[in-house]
């Protein structure tokens, strides 16, 4: 995400519609991209983009320029996404339960684990990421790309740092399976 012109920000703070639209146009793609990583469906990501921008407009007066505006918007997006995650936690949990056992085994056995028999052909990273369980994908993105610590993620999702670490490990175990060339030998 890029920096934001001070004048544009000042105009947006007064509620100027043209300025708000410019801000939206500048941030819709990065926020939507982040939303896609942190939500289950494209439809959820659209909702999150809208919710984020409504929140941005409501709170923009409180933005004092400490840190970048882009960083602030990312934080708003992440926070709203994790709120949704907490809200829908039980439903997500149910859907992911069947995958959890295999992931846990893989994570605990480290990189010596053999690929699970049902592993499909090699996927590209984008497709593999999309196939991760929702919570594991969100944790991985927040930690590995957005730079959140496990403690920060734990606080945001109302869980422990251990939960965040194990979700990250599960995600990487699955990514490894999905990205590994079919001929790759596992070390012992």
């Amino acid at each position, binding site marked *: 995400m890029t920096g934001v012109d001070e004048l544009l920000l000042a105009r947006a703070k007064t509620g100027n519609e043209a300025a708000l639209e410019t801000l939206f146009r500048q941030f819709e793609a990065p926020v939507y991209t982040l939303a896609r990583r942190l939500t289950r469906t494209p439809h959820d*990501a659209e909702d999150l983009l809208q919710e984020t921008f409504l929140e941005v407009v409501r709170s923009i007066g409180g933005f004092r320029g400490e840190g970048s505006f882009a960083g602030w918007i990312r934080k708003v997006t992440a926070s709203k996404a994790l709120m949704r995650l907490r809200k829908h936690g039980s439903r997500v949990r149910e859907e992911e339960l069947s995958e959890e056992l295999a992931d846990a085994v893989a994570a605990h056995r480290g990189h010596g684990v053999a690929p699970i028999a049902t592993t499909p052909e090699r996927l590209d990273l984008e497709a593999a990421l999309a196939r991760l369980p929702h919570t594991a994908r969100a944790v991985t993105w927040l930690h590995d790309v957005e730079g959140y610590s496990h403690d920060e993620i734990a606080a945001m999702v109302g869980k422990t740092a251990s939960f965040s670490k194990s979700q990250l490990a599960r995600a990487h175990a699955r990514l490894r399976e999905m990205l590994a060339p079919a001929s790759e030998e596992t070390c012992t």
Partner: protein
Amino acid sequence: MHLSLEDLLAARDGEATTEAAAHADSCPECTAEIARLRAVQRALAALPEQRPPQDLWPALRIALASRRHHRRWVLAGRTAAGLAAAFTLVIGVRGGLEAWHEAKIARQTRELVAASQRLEHQLRTADSGGRVVSGRIAGTIVQLEDRIAAIDAKLSRPRAERYPSQDVVSLWQERVRLLDALVSVQTTRTTYVGL
């Protein structure tokens, strides 16, 4: 015995225990695995940006305008009228089970729109007229209004106006629930609305 994936990730992030770091230093396979995890991390960060499949600004602009204009809920009436017209048209040209299902959805929607309008009327009657409310109550009101505005934005999307669906009914149900909560906050001045 190699490091577990959690230990490898901790080593990648510079947070490994002394023992794990010592093992990683002396094990070429674990060192290679840590390098691979770093490469995956870099590749994730380098994935291309995506754009929303449809332009969301028009709906957002309406939501923002509706919020600015003293939360008068003008959109609800317009959307309701559009939905009612669309449903009538659709039911007129189809028959059988499909039409029955759509008629059911249309009826549910009409009832919810009517409930929505009753609650909006209550809100107008109970409007604080600029009276001072506490910060917590104001925060709750703004939160509820934001969520209603977000629903209005969804209801104003072309597909929501054109096609009757269970999703549209769910949106109206949520809208009625939030309006009901807002009426409670306005009339009892309580911040707890069970959301």
